[in-house]
């Protein structure tokens, strides 16, 4: 495995992904709403040479239930806007990618397109986005523009649940399409500053996008010039066929949640088939495995810690992703096994940010480096560069050439 072929990201979520993580001595629950807290986490991830961090977000309070609030007071509730948090950190870092979560269902693609383009400017080419849908009725109530009936995980598996989900993901696909077209709506050399003719821009290099779909229409062009990366990478978490299709149609990275190597092979095969169906077979599309991680010097310590956290939470922690409790060497083994089965990277979810993020950067990363499986220095200045994604040509420039 060549050093840059394995990619590592960390998903930042509150004090960590375990609901009792905030009760650990290393946790800083009272700092969650300060810039310093997030700056420290991202600086640590950058010390570990990770490709990028993602920032979770939501348009309502967190909940332990999928589709509704739980009224609990024993877990972290409340969070800051992910795009703003990423932007606040950008000037304090130099290499690591910054990938905030964006909710496609209730927000405006025009606003998000310019926000992510601006994040790309303030980070000099390190922005990405993670697109997410929201089918939660209580979040729809915060906007009052549309209503959704309650949707739980069982209903999701029924034909009508699948139909609703397909509709939301189709909207998200359109959303990403609009965002990308707006990024392309300025050709890279549109600003000409031609003093002789008095023209600041060449208006032939600015383009209306004229996108129309069932959910929205957007005329364009953007107000923000094309960002440094051309198109910041688009990422999405996916658990089944409908979201795999979004990843295959519109993604640069899909995060998936296999629990063993056979599942890796099956999921990757399904995504590749969808990718081919979408006419993108020749484009680089990363499939990353999501893993919740508890890392300690020996496996028993990690398992004890998990048991202690579960006891504090009052119930065993479950997740869509596999929960890994063990040593850095064991995790490196699993990562290599899953890589060989078809994953090109991993998004690790630290169970306790203050403990497991450091275990990743100071334990796992050196272990992978010793095996020659991970970079020993940042080899590119942009997130696309780190991910091996070429800077895309502008679709409108191609049309006029």
């Amino acid at each position, binding site marked *: 495995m060549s050093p840059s072929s394995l990619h590592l990201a960390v998903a930042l979520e509150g004090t960590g992904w375990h609901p009792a993580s905030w009760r650990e001595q290393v946790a800083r629950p009272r700092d969650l709403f300060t810039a310093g807290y997030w700056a420290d986490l991202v600086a640590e991830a950058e010390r570990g040479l990770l490709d990028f961090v993602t920032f979770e977000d939501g*348009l309502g309070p967190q909940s332990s239930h999928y589709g509704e609030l739980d009224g609990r007071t024993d877990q972290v509730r409340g969070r800051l806007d992910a795009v703003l948090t990423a932007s606040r950190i950008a000037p304090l870092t130099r290499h690591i990618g910054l990938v905030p979560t964006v909710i496609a269902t209730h927000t405006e693609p025009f606003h998000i397109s*310019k926000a992510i383009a601006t994040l790309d400017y*303030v980070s000099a080419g390190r922005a990405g986005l993670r697109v997410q849908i929201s089918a939660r009725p209580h979040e729809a109530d915060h906007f009052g523009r549309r209503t959704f009936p309650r949707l739980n995980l069982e209903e999701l598996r029924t034909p009508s649940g699948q139909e609703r989900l397909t509709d939301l993901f189709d909207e998200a696909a359109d959303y990403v399409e609009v965002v990308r077209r707006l990024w392309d709506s300025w050709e890279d050399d549109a600003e000409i*500053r031609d003093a002789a003719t008095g023209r*600041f821009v060449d208006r032939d290099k600015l383009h209306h996008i004229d996108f129309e779909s069932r959910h929205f229409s957007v005329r364009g062009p953007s*107000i923000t010039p094309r960002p440094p990366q051309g198109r910041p990478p688009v990422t999405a978490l996916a658990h089944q066929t409908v979201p795999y299709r979004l990843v295959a149609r519109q993604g640069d990275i899909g995060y998936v949640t296999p629990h063993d190597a056979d599942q890796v092979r099956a999921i990757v095969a399904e995504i590749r088939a969808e990718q081919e169906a979408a006419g993108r077979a020749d484009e680089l599309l990363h499939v990353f495995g999501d893993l919740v991680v508890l890392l300690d010097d020996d496996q028993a310590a990690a398992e004890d810690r998990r048991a202690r956290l579960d006891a504090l939470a009052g119930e065993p922690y479950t997740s869509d992703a596999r929960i890994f409790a063990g040593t850095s060497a064991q995790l490196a083994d699993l990562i290599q096994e899953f890589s060989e089965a078809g994953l090109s990277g991993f998004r690790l979810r630290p169970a306790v940010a203050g403990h497991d993020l450091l275990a990743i950067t100071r334990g796992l990363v050196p272990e992978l480096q010793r095996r020659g499986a991970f970079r020993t220095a940042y080899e590119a200045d942009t997130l696309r560069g780190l991910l091996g994604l070429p800077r895309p040509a502008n679709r409108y420039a191609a049309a006029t050439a």
Partner: protein
Amino acid sequence: MTSKPLKQIHLAAHFPGVNNTTVWSDPKAGSHIEFSSFVHFAQTAERAKFDFLFLAEGLRLREQGGNIYDLDVVGRPDTFTVLAALAAVTERLGLTGTINSTFNEPYEVARQFAGLDHLSGGRSAWNVVTSWDAFTGENFRRGGFLPQEERYSRAKEFLATANELFDSWHGDEIVADRTTGVFLRDAKAGSFVHTGQHFDIHGQFNVPRSPQGRPVIFQAGDSEDGREFAASSADAVFSQYASLKEGQAFYTDVKNRLARYGRSHRDLLILPAATFVLGDTDAEAEELAREVRRQQVSGATAIKHLEFVWNRDLSAYDPEGPLPGIDPDAGGDHISKGRAQVRMYRDPLATAREWRELAAANNWSIRDLVIHTGNRQTFVGSPETVARTINDFVQADVSDGFILVPHITPGGLDPFADKVVPLLQEQGVFRTEYEGTTLRDHLGLAHPDDVRGERAAS
């Protein structure tokens, strides 16, 4: 009887935006997009101990005659995102952004401002603007626009709703007691219900109370509705009257409206936008100002400016020649889109008549006329003259201070910071150090919790 104590001056800096004030052709002109330009500008403003940095917003590129307007600076970054990044490279400077109340939703905007306030340690401010045009609406899901008469009713309800969200957390909800396992004091933290003409929303806001409680609120409209909105709901007005008589009239009018909302004169600051041109001497500054004006108004720009009023294609006219003999087209769609100035000329026939008379009396070409009628240079002179004039204006209640718009990006503020600010400090009318940490501290505004406390006590 002692003399009236000197008013302290408030100063802010407006990053030059999309208009012909910005001289992009100057060799010293840098990028208006690259983050390094914003860093330079913000750090200059903070070095000069300014109250805040101000960013305008546009949501659609301007067009004229069906074409994208290409003579001025075009393009700008996203307001929230660039302000959040600037919070990382400044420590005290207030961060004020224009956010439209028509093409946004209260829950999202309240989250963003509360977040910006947390991430900046209490330095966020929101310039609430309204818009109703279908032209801008073509970029949005809403697709829509508002009847013009409803724009302030939506803006007022938008702001009231955002305030309900800001106030939905009181500041003591997060307990985070490791031992007992209580993170939140109250499961219902952030609960809100708003039912109104424009918004019918309920649920729980998910951002705890921020350092300033609420962002500082700016308002910029000048209509009767706009003035009333400012008097009822704003902390500061971004006005356009930086001259002695007009400024005093606006100041008196708006401040006198405060009483009916139970507010006092110090609850609302009047801060006009102002440009400046500095020279070593007054004469040198005057000469420089003339050069800047000619750079700001090229022949092509002058013709386009005339087209706002004439509402016709005037590209065949010579900018160095006389004004068109034909009258403005007072009907139909305006050929200029996405420009606030269009609304300034409500009676184009009268404006055309007046301009022809002016041009004839002074022997002005089209370009001369636009240079003179569009003159936005507020303070021209030596640093001593400019400092004295600014202080005189503030002491004479033209305003409580000024929002300065340099004509060069990003270095245009530097000479003001280096030469004028020290003179104001010597006169004891401008701070030499920040006294507080939040924008409310700089502006001398009460914290919303204090206001609520006072009202509860009274």
